[in-house]
């Protein structure tokens, strides 16, 4: 799954009380995802206000002129208090932006909050534009991406070099054995380049990027405490997405998608894929696995996934771990790892 940080509640005070559990609560009034969706583009690139939560999530593995690996994240979350859109301050659509740049030694993070209705944040499908404050992501196939924080920023251009990929069953991504699900598609074939603005100066970078689009109203089951999500771009041109949803009873729920170089995808469900922590790191008081063994036997994958910078903790109002990884073993590549619920 591409289940990223879910924000039912945006305010810090609330999130402390709520954390990542309890996200599978009722979805009164909100539309629920149904199997066999028919996505319509470009309309579905835009917001779906009748669903509770939604995100536009870009991650990228970048390389500087001297070969230094970098990671980049640009995320816009939408969280609705009610399934409606109203003009002005009364709009129940709330928005949250997360941006980060990870180097082998540093991890820069920043966050923005806004409400819809006044134009401070939003997403338009045609032409595609997603923004919060001065951050923006314009254009799906040929796009620009910008974010700024107190001590960093970036300006990027994106070019899609492959088709959109529907995750799960035609874009219907099941999150638990009890049927929680989301709509989920990705653009895993971005070529990306641009400039990172870092405290030591600007760095020109190039690399590969990955866009996740997901919307839902009740993505997690009551007993699910967090997740581990991997996106991998193998050197051979293939892509892989794996997630593990951890349950309070100790059992895990797995899902994966194998994406051929031409964009053809094969979904794998629980029991066909595993991810096993090999090494843990304590960061900001939280212990998280930062080296993993990921196995997808059906595709001959048995790889070790290691964090470029183990300290990639997102000190946002909902904290989590997110950063670039290197992949070694049966195949080599780079990717992104996200881990939530490690309280």
């Amino acid at each position, binding site marked *: 799954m591409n289940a990223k940080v879910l924000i039912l509640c945006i305010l810090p005070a609330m999130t402390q009380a709520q954390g990542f559990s309890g996200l599978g609560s009722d979805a009164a009034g909100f539309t629920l995802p149904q199997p066999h969706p028919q996505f319509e583009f470009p309309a579905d690139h835009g917001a779906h206000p009748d669903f509770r939560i939604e995100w536009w999530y870009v991650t990228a593995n970048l390389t500087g002129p001297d070969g230094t690996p970098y990671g980049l994240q640009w995320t816009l979350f939408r969280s609705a208090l009610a399934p409606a859109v109203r003009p002005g301050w009364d709009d129940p659509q709330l928005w949250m932006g997360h941006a980060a740049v990870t180097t082998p030694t540093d991890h820069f993070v920043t966050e923005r909050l*806004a409400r819809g209705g006044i134009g401070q944040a939003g997403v338009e499908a045609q032409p595609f534009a997603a923004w919060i404050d001065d951050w923006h992501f314009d254009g799906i196939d040929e796009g620009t991406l910008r974010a700024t924080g107190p001590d960093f920023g970036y300006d990027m251009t994106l070019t899609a070099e492959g088709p959109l990929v529907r995750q799960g069953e035609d874009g219907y991504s099941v999150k638990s054995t009890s049927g929680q699900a989301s709509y989920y598609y990705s653009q895993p074939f971005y070529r990306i380049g641009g400039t990172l603005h870092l405290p030591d100066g600007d760095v020109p970078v190039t690399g590969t990027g990955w866009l996740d689009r997901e919307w839902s109203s009740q993505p997690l089951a009551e007993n699910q405490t967090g997740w581990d999500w991997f996106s991998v771009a193998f050197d051979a041109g293939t892509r892989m997405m794996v997630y593990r949803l951890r349950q309070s009873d100790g059992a895990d729920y797995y899902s994966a998608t194998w994406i051929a170089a031409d964009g053809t995808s094969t979904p794998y469900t629980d029991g066909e894929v595993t991810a096993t922590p090999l090494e843990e790191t304590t960061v900001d008081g939280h212990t998280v696995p930062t080296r993993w063994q990921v196995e997808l036997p059906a595709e001959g994958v048995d790889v070790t996934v290691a964090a470029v910078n183990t300290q990639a903790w997102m000190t946002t109002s909902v904290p989590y771990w997110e950063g670039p990884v290197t992949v070694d073993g049966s195949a080599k590549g780079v990717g992104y790892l996200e881990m939530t619920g490690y309280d």
Partner: protein
Amino acid sequence: MTGTVLRALLSHWRRNPLQLFTLLAGLALATALWSGVQAINAEARASYDSAAATLGEGTFDQLTRSDGQPLTVASYVALRRAGWLVSPVTEGRLDGVRIVGLDPLTAPGGLGPVQIADGADVGAFLSGQGQVFGRAAALAALPAGPEKVESPDVAPDTVITDIGVAQRLLGRDGQIDRLIVAMTQPIGQAPLSEIAPELIRKVAQGGSDLGRLTDSFHLNLTAFGLLSFAVGIFIVNGAIGLAFEQRRPVVRTLRALGVPLRRLMVLMALELALMALVAGGIGVALGYVIASLLLPDVAATLQGLYGATVAGTLQLRPVWWASGLAIAFGGTAMASAAAFWRLARLPLLAGGSPRALSMAAGRSARVQGALALVLLVAAGALALTAQGLVAGFALLGSMLIGAALALPLILDRVLAMAERLSRGVRAQWFWADTRQQLPGLSLALAALLLAMAANVGVSTMVSSFRLTFTGFLDQRLASELYVTAADPADAKRLVDYVTPRVRAVLPIQSAPAQIAGFPAEVFGARDDATYRDNWAFLSANPDTWDAVAAGDGILINEQLSRRSGLSLNDAVTLGGRQFAVEGVYGDYGNPIGQAILTEAAFEALYPDVTPLRFGLRLPAAEVPSLVEALENDVGIPAANTVNQAGIKRISLDIFDRTFTVTTALNILTLTVAGFAILMSLLTLAALRVPQLAPAWAMGLTRRELGLLELVRAVLLAVLTALVALPLGLALAWALLAVVNVAAFGWRLPMFLFPLDYLRLGGFALLAAALAALWPAWRLARTPPSDLLKVFSNER
């Protein structure tokens, strides 16, 4: 052993209940006044802090439109989209309650006291009818609508809510009053002047405006509290000293019986600590009573003088009751330090006979005199050179302590001189005897001195402030009527309507600016006789207003002059133009700098500013009909007009409240001083009998002796008052000319109020006479047999 020793020590208090009472009452009174004042200050400051936190004053820079108009949502969003992390605030009053609307999503952390904690619902706060957070009283005043959530952290008379809810409640859709600028801003921001040139940035001042503005008031209260405490400690010191002296035989006996000195001292310290705890507890409770009685007046004063809202009811804050107890312990320690020191150095055999209170304490008198001289010389030097708050307080401290130390010596000299000059034998004996009483009374008299000096000083300062401020109001509020228009169109209609109907229309327009690097407000004044006739300057060139009207002159207020060092004829650059300072005027109660240009020069510099406020000159009798006409014909509600007489009445009312507080504190401190005198006299009464018995035996009646005791107390009070008056005036001078200047940037002229001083002197004499009445009466009623016992060995 410990128990036995402790019983022996404590038996002293059972035998001398009066001493015990003196000790406890003195300490309790001292603690009460101190903690009462602290409670008031703490309450007021908590109110300012919660208000400041609500508004982000002091912590965050603010953006407002330079023309004073509200901002639009579009310009807010434009700023956000240009990378400016700003958060909108809309505020206003509804049914007397200040409504503050915030955007919780963009408000910087730490802004707003609302801890949306248990049970709070973001959905409820941000949508539908929303929620308002405030104290119960404020919530009760609001009409039904949003859900009311009680939150004691919110400033009094204020509610906090979502900006959308606030705009709806206030009927101000889409209007934003100001933007709070987050402390950390992202990189790559465009400069403000490119995105929003109409906005000006007000730099955070560190600490709330209200806090700084009201500091002077709190300074007074604190000075009072501290002095009262000092007075109380004098009492305690006297009581402890006497108790230790009287217990010297017991101590000697106990030591002779083998009790180690160290254990004795520890036990006596424990005993005092216990008393400090008891007295401190009583004092804090009394302080709470004092504070809750005075707080409504203080709150009204602060509200009226400075617009600072302070809750009229007191909360039990741990800070002040803890500090009250701490100061009770500290005071006891201070008061007993000397007694312990003497006890520790006492040879085992020397402790037998109680040391007589004698006048032959030559060496210590010389030391005391030298110390007093050093302090007073230091005070004199500081008075000539002192600049800044610390030096100002050093001046106050050395002056007061020096005077308190010098007082017994001065009185001794005066009495010795009177003794030499007196003719009759009774008079001679009276002076000599009075002089002999001095050592025993000097602590109480020093307490009276401090209390009276504080009263003279503070009341001179407050009264000078009142006189200056009311004069200043006369100057500033020269127009008979002030009218505020809602918008420029409204303003135009107003001007068109009133111009043929009044003698003069004086627009009031201002713009924020930086002058010589200091934040200031620039006003544009129309050339009018009103200003020429009414304005008083601290310093000015001849034909000031002509020079200003010519367009090249500028007037600045005293604060700006002092802070920037600008004085007459200096050049001021504003918007690339040069102006010469033509005059400096007093501007009391204003925390920031101010400057005045002529209207034309102002309009050239700030073409965007449209005046919305106007002063109207017309015969006072026509004011009511004009107000009515404005409401009916122009549609300006009466609420937007302010009548000069009304403002002045309110100001005077405020001052009356201030005086209530000052007078109450005056009386309280004098009461404490009177109590000190009473206790000293009662303590001395036992020692007096052997001194008076020979005079009685030789033919003075007891009635005469009692009367002389009374006269003596009053006389000493008079002499002390004579010393206290110049000391109090010096105190007032130091407060007005040094402390005020350092703290607030303006110097108040000092006025003298002889009648007040006379009344105060009367109070002091009354306090002394009341204090001496009972001891004197007791003396007059002493049975002859008690007097005769003095002469025989069978006492």
